[in-house]
């Protein structure tokens, strides 16, 4: 199968305000992308760009305003839980809120096993759980009967992944899995994704704002800005030779682990995020270092340059006479 997950012109609008002054905020603005089997696809962008909303829609926790989500060729209709038996699982940002602090963590594992009928007897269940825990570097003996606050953040996040693996998913949606983990421990989690892809053929939709780990682990990447995908393609291309001005800004703002490569020029920041959502034309026009007059009124088209999709007027040859 060519595409494991396909998202077509997905749109999500929120209406804010009261009866008198309503504004429509388009959190996800007609985005389209697809994920192949056994591939790690990153949806990257800063907070407020719409990546988490997209993830919630794909998982069925929210409804889209328009557009389609197609998994294994079948469109997802309404909030379906059968989605999960089809091979989709998810892990979330904060491992300490992923589990109920008043219940032991193993309860979730046993519930998953029972609900999806993954084992017939208790010893079988324990063996299955132990297998999955070993995949993430833990064992059942040190796991049984413990509450979430007895683990460190990194351990708990790995346990969260183990739980997601119980149903042998083909697609794992990871929503900012490393943001709350120390920078030095992120490798242990992100290496797991690589292992899942290489040894088990699992695809991962990796949602993050940490471009360094995104570069390290993904095959393809899409950069989102205020609801639009502004650049998408193989990660080597997009992050090492960025084309869209926003991608360039992001790439340059990542602190390098080398004291010689310190920043020299300053960056201007936006004060009220709101405004950028409501722009006509290109949403980045307010901060773009190479902005042109038409950017402020005309929305750029999706152009393909050398395998990479870019949403920027600068690359639109039809404008250059």
């Amino acid at each position: 199968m060519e595409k494991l997950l396909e998202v077509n012109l997905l749109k999500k609008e929120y209406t804010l305000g009261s009866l008198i002054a309503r504004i429509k905020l388009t959190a996800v603005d007609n985005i389209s992308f697809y994920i192949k089997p056994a591939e790690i696809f990153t949806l990257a962008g800063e907070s407020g760009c719409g990546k988490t909303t997209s993830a919630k829609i794909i998982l069925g926790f929210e409804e889209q305003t328009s557009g389609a989500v197609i998994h294994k060729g079948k469109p997802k209709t309404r909030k379906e839980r059968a989605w999960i038996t089809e091979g989709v699982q998810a892990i979330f940002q904060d491992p300490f809120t992923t589990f109920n602090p008043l219940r032991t963590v193993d309860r979730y594992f046993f519930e998953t096993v029972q609900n999806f009928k993954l084992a017939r007897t208790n010893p079988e269940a324990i063996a299955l759980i132990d297998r999955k825990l070993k995949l993430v570097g833990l064992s059942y003996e040190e796991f049984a009967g413990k509450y979430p606050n007895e683990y460190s953040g990194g351990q708990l996040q790995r346990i969260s992944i183990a739980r997601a693996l119980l149903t042998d998913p083909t697609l794992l949606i990871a929503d900012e899995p490393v943001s709350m983990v120390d920078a030095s421990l992120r490798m242990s989690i992100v290496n797991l994704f690589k292992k899942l892809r290489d040894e088990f053929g699992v695809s991962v939709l990796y949602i993050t704002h940490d471009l360094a780990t995104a570069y390290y682990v993904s095959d393809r990447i899409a950069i989102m800005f205020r609801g639009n995908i502004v650049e998408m393609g193989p990660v080597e291309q997009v992050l090492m030779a960025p084309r869209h001005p926003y991608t360039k800004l992001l790439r340059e703002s990542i602190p390098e682990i080398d004291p010689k490569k310190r920043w020299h020029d300053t960056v201007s920041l936006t004060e009220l995020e709101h405004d950028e959502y409501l722009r006509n034309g290109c949403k980045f026009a307010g901060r773009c270092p190479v902005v042109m007059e038409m950017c402020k009124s005309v929305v750029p088209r999706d152009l393909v340059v050398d395998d990479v999709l870019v949403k920027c007027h600068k690359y639109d040859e039809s404008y250059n006479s």
Partner: protein
Amino acid sequence: MNNFILRTEKLKAFYILDMQGTQKIVKAVNEVELEIEENEIYGIAGESGCGKTTLLKALFNSFDPPLHLVGGKIFYGMGDRYVDGTSLNQEDKRKLRMEYISYVPQGSMSVLNPVLKLKDTYQDFIASHVDGKTRSEAFEIAKAHISELGLPANILGAYPHQLSGGMRQRVTIALATLLKPRIMICDEPTTALDVVVQRGVIQLLKDIQRNLKNTIIIVTHDMGVHANIADRVGIMYAGKIVEEATTELIFNSPLHPYTQFLINSLPKFGDKSTRGSVPGSPPSLADLPDGCPFHPRCPRVMDVCKTQMPGFVHPNDRHRVACWLVGEG
């Protein structure tokens, strides 16, 4: 030697918890010796749970139960004399804070009062520390300060929730520098911020330091931030400083195995080869191993490491490390 502005001698600060009969002692700061100079940015790096936040509280002279100062001293350099922090009374401590040292806590964006406009927060702050200013004079001071730092003056009329996270963080940092403190302590100022915003915050801190020529102590687990802003970096592990050097030395020739792990575990652009994290987990501060606290996870552990805590050696004038593997330079 340079003048130091803050010095600790065998500082020990433990949390003593009394839970239903048994006592649990968390050795968060376990004999820390620091000498922080004037006019420098000093970074403290380490994993969560290594005691960094407690160390900051101790440096800020804020020992609220269950945190107790168990031993050691803290010296603050004020003018031409050194004041022993542990001997100050309540009133002096209050004046110390905010006028001499200011503290920007973790998640500081939530420190702003959500029902007050920013200008009210600033005016209240000025009123409680500087006598004899009217509300409008205070407002002028606040406005001038904000503009000096490159932030737009009109944000003073806004409520905190109207601003973005990055702007709130910068506003809080600006508040902390209002009284031109000699030392500024920042706890994870860039965590939870987006990468571009992070850059803006780091810029702001650098500008402040350049203008005031004061000292900034910045704590974060993100080595990239240290690489960009710090003059010297101290690596903290299980309540102790295990290595300290100029930023160049730390990144180019880290000597302690833990430091080496920290630096190698960070992904670099252009390099997709497999990297590993530090193996294992940090020890619980309530139950520390004997000898060097890192020995259970150290790939080059020796017998002496298991029983004796290494002292500091100085392979270089600006580099000290506590590890049995390293000899004197």
